[in-house]
């Protein structure tokens, strides 16, 4: 039983870190610009391709990772400059539609490049050795990618929190999110702060892209859709626009997702003879082993309940109105 529970917890933490890396990026941008950046998943996808092609080219891992992070940041900055800056302050619907357009361009651009490189749509991801195989602790075996994912996610998130609360640029981001005109009036360079937010958000997405691709083992130009949707749900659960909320929501979602699988297997992990056959039958009836395949349905059900009963999210508390 211990082994099974520990494995599920590690799965939850690992998925939570991935969602958190993505959700923080969404929350950063939304906080300042009121823009729901649905192209974020596609930025993550591009990062996975940058890593893959750098590794295919035989570059050493640190160089490949440098290209992945650096290239993704440049793409994030270019998207902000070309697509979002001209419509900044415009209607939220216009910004949302623009983000879909940017996503489409990234997907089709990647598709085009893979065709030009004579690669199939779906390619195997050259997962780095450090992310391959399993870690064995006693009888518990955990995929390395999950351990590294959780660990690196936590380290990066703590770093981001420190950056946002301890540095001038971080405080400027908070100020811009709180009151953009007032931030301008104290002399904050809004263009610079927004660019920094996009750069940070893209860097986080690139790490998420590497982890996601290493877990999945293969990549295609459409892989960003599910992660960005999950990150969006995580951010809503936590309290949209709040950075700590995004992190809390992401780990909550990670755990929420493993619960159906965990419950589905509950009858199998009880020691033989621990419960009477009647109870064993009952458990198998209430929690069929196929419960895990209803994972997304259960997550969305929870999201609906959240929106009904606590629309401001876990950390949202009461209505967060700006003080006039």
């Amino acid at each position, binding site marked *: 039983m211990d082994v099974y529970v520990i494995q599920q917890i590690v799965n939850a933490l690992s998925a939570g870190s991935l969602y958190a890396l993505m959700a923080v990026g969404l929350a950063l941008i939304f906080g300042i610009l009121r823009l729901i950046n649905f192209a974020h998943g596609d930025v993550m996808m591009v990062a996975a391709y940058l890593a893959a092609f750098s590794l295919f080219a035989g570059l050493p891992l640190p160089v490949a990772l440098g290209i992945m992070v650096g290239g993704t940041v440049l793409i994030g900055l270019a998207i902000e400059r070309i697509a979002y800056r001209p419509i900044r302050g415009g209607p939220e619907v216009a910004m949302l539609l623009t983000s879909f357009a940017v996503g489409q361009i990234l997907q089709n651009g990647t598709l085009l490049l893979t065709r030009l490189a004579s690669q199939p749509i779906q390619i195997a991801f050259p997962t780095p050795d450090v992310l391959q195989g399993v870690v064995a602790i006693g009888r518990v075996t955990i995929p390395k990618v999950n351990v590294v994912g959780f660990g690196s996610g936590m380290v990066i998130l703590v770093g981001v929190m420190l950056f946002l609360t301890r540095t001038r640029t971080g405080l400027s981001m908070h100020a811009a999110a709180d009151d953009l005109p007032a931030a301008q009036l104290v002399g904050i*360079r809004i263009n610079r702060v927004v660019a920094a937010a996009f750069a940070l958000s893209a860097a986080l997405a690139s790490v998420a892209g590497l982890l996601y691709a290493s877990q999945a083992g293969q990549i295609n130009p459409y892989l960003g859709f599910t992660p960005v949707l999950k990150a969006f749900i995580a951010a809503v659960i936590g309290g949209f626009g709040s950075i700590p909320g995004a992190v809390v929501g992401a780990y909550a979602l990670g755990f929420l997702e493993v619960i159906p699988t965990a419950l589905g297997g509950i009858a199998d992990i009880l020691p033989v003879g621990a419960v009477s056959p009647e109870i064993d039958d009952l458990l198998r009836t209430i929690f069929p082993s196929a419960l895990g395949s209803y994972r997304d349905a259960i997550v969305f059900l929870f999201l609906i309940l959240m929106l009904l009963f606590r629309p401001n999210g876990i950390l949202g508390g009461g209505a967060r109105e700006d003080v006039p």
Partner: protein
Amino acid sequence: MLELVDLHVAYGNIRALRGISMRVESGELVALIGSNGAGKSTTLKAISGLLRPTSGRILFEGEDISRASTDRIVSLGISQCPEGRRVFARLTVRENLLLGGITRPMSEVRSDLASTTELFPRLGERMGQVAGTLSGGEQQMLAIGRALMSRPRLLILDEPSLGLAPLMVERIFEVIDGLKDRGLTMLLVEQNVHHALDSADRAYVLETGTITLEGPADMLRHDPEVEHSYLGR
């Protein structure tokens, strides 16, 4: 120090400022009064670079700043304390003050915290408190304190007494008088015309985008039209 020359500003087809000229000399406290919609906020936005004039010039110490960015204008020495206070509600008092000095080196800004809290002891007691939880008067103090952190040579105050309790209005004007005694140049937009004319050296009256009256504050206080329209006598 500050001079507006034949300034025109339009929102689309609506002409908000129709050629206003005014100046603020070093060490002066100049009041800008007028009813709602007269163009006071538009004037301040143009000075701070939030709005681009359609024509005319804004000179600060001889340099034309009418096309400069807001952060450049703040670095040059013009700081605006916005209407409605607009403190960063989710940040602490200390963080608000530190951000007020964003255009200056961090070490200098940190050492200025002490002089600001000397001016506003209430803020000093609440440095770690989130600004959104302060009272309206405290938030106004914080907004002024934040604007002072850039060490402005010209401080622009937009409706500093708006929505405050009478006792707090007195306190705010004490602060303004104190800053004037220390030689700070100020441009004050204020619906409390009584108080504004008491503190100011000179004043301008703005009506539908044009300056209709100007002169020493003492003189305007006894002007029949000002008495009738703004002082309610």
